[in-house]
């Protein structure tokens, strides 16, 4: 039986040649990323093709997705944060669909790899830094200077604020990655118990117990998959809010 970690193994599907010593290949990870993007594009292009006043199933799904993210952006980043709507929406849909694709048995979970979530978090933080500096110049670094504090306290508080800022992309990426990785490992282990008990003679009577747990875990994993995408989007909005209004 496959071990609980084997599902995260990256396997090359088509080799595209070599750069330096390392092989460049189209992997199962890349395949599921392409699949996620294709599903999102299909959902929105196909769903909004009619533009009927009374939406059909797909159109209402697409509209719900848009409205949900738009409200999140307005609530967390303010109305002038709506210029980042395309970024937040793309991130949210990509993370959500990747998480959901990972819930299909046998599928590969793209977001269970730290490098993927770290790249997404780096995208967010670089957007915040570049936009913040481009718009506010050196005033952007007022983000690290809390207001209404005694100047002597700033000696301690400014480094703390800087570390707090640096920790943002790390917490952003590690949260998503760890949740997906731990959830899928737990799911695999409990599902493995069912099979092990079933073939363990008299112990087979106990095999429904982990089965029930697995079902509960699957429900929890669906919740986590949606929730993590939402948390990722909300935090992106909060960080973008800092880029838009650094002085507070």
């Amino acid at each position: 039986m496959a071990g609980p970690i084997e599902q995260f193994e990256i396997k090359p599907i088509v080799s595209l040649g070599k750069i330096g010593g390392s092989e460049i290949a189209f992997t199962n990870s890349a395949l599921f990323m392409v699949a996620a993007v294709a599903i999102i594009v299909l959902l929105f292009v196909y769903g909004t093709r009619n533009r009927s006043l009374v939406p059909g199933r797909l159109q209402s799904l697409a509209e719900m997705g848009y409205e949900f993210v738009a409200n999140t952006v307005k609530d967390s980043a303010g109305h002038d944060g709506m210029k980042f709507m395309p970024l937040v929406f793309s991130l949210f849909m990509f993370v959500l669909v990747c998480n959901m694709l990972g819930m299909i048995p046998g599928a590969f979970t793209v977001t269970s790899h730290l490098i993927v979530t770290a790249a997404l978090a780096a995208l967010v933080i670089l957007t915040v830094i570049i936009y913040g500096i481009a718009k506010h110049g050196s005033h952007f670094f007022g983000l690290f200077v809390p207001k209404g504090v005694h100047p002597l306290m700033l000696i301690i508080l400014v480094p703390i604020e800087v570390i707090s800022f640096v920790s943002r992309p790390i917490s952003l990426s590690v949260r998503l990655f760890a949740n997906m990785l731990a959830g899928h490992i737990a799911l695999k282990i409990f599902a493995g118990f069912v099979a092990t008990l079933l073939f363990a003679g008299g112990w087979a009577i106990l095999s429904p117990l982990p089965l029930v747990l697995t079902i509960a875990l699957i429900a929890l994993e669906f919740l986590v998959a949606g929730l993590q995408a939402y948390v990722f989007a909300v935090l992106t909005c909060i960080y973008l809010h800092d880029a838009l209004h650094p002085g507070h």
Partner: protein
Amino acid sequence: MTGQDGKSSGPERPAEKDASLESRLKSLDAGLKRATNQTEAEIRRESTSSDSSGIGQAMRLSTEFVAGIIVGGGLGWAVDKWLGTAPFGMIVLLMLGFGAGVMNVVRAAGLMKSRTDDKSGAQN
């Protein structure tokens, strides 16, 4: 009782009755407006608070804290390696990282915002 009063006073002074009706209508209107404003404000407050709290919020807190310490420790290790200030960079930056982790959690829990708002309000 009121019906009887209306019957007895109605035919005698219709103008006064109209005036009283109008004033009642106005006060009702004002009351309705106040009530809808209140519920709207409540709905707005609820929608923002349910976004900033809840289960998604709970998931933030643990990683925010850990991330602060990891970054502090990592920076300390890097500073020690580059400058050769063996244990001191790690000690100082780990403690600062701990502080940053606490600050992250306090900020994520939404406690910081109201306090700074109060402060700036008091200063201005």
